[in-house]
């Protein structure tokens, strides 16, 4: 055997679970993806109660965000076809809602009461941008769904 086994082990630990290239590349690209609107504050995250009032099927998680110009409550739910949906309530309403991910974005407009639904959300990082007419857009922090 050659060399100090402690250094050999350090070398082994560096080789055994290195940062995947795609993780490094995603980190490099984050600056181009993340910027923009001011941040809403995460107020709470929890498992939704069955009677939480949002019109969902199988809700998995519920977040509440708040800011000076807007507030939004959103649930992550599983659709019948197995994809994810974001179903929520935004205030004030109506407002435009954009779900942005590192690979693209989808947008909708809430109904007059503030309800919105965004289907076909892919697992991974997502941030919601809220566009209230007459105000600067605001965004939720990035979260893994």
């Amino acid at each position, binding site marked *: *055997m050659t060399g*100090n*086994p*402690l250094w*050999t*082990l*350090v070398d*082994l*630990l*560096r*080789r*055994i*679970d*290195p*940062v*995947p290239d*795609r*993780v*490094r590349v*995603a*980190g*490099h690209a*984050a*600056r*181009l*993806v*993340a*910027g923009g609107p001011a*941040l809403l504050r995460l107020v709470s*995250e929890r*498992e939704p109660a069955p009677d939480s009032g949002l019109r969902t099927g199988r809700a*998995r*998680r519920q977040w509440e965000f708040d800011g000076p110009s807007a507030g939004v409550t959103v649930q992550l739910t599983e659709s019948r076809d197995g994809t994810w949906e974001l179903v929520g309530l935004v205030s004030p309403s109506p407002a435009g809602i954009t779900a942005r991910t*590192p690979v693209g974005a989808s947008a909708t407009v809430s109904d007059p009461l503030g309800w919105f639904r965004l289907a076909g959300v892919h*697992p*991974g*990082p997502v*941030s919601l941008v809220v566009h209230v007419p007459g105000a600067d857009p605001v*965004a939720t*922090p*990035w*979260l*893994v769904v």
Partner: protein
Amino acid sequence: MSDRRTSSEDDLHRLVADAVRGDHDAWRRLVDRYAGLVWAVARRHRLDAADAADVCQVTWLRLAQRLPALRDPARLPAWLVTTTRREAARVRAARHREPPVDLDLVPPTPVEGPEDRVLRDEHDAALWRVFSRLPERCQHLLRMLAVDPRTSYADLARAFDLRPSSVGPVRTRCLRALRGLLAEAGLLPGPVPSGAAR
């Protein structure tokens, strides 16, 4: 309070300032500098590679959002550790609430992981067996120090829920335990130090 900074801290201040000014190369170097640390913290929460990758990506996205407001660049490693740890814990908790995978849908062919590829070397495999016998906390601590030796005790304390003053003694105990196990396995050259094991 001293305003003396090490060259490493000066370099970090420059990188952050350049990245805030929009220098993409500075941002890339910032990511490369701490990618190992962020990855190690995510993996410490026993996330699979896909979830760990998502957590790392969210950490970098949040940093990109918050970088212009970062007042003290020296606090960046601590911020990265805390943010990654919180998001990893959140994802891990969420995954535990999800229904278990239907085993009938799991492909029967075993998939070769990175460890399998690395451990084909007999000596590496012997070292790995020794390392795997360490307490879990020691494994994570030593792995994090191996990945990024510049990680400060304060940041390690945040990552491991320890008091900063406890990190040094824990590290010493882990290294002592490792030396003992290496000696026991005949992997240490020279005489075995008395009382090294356990």
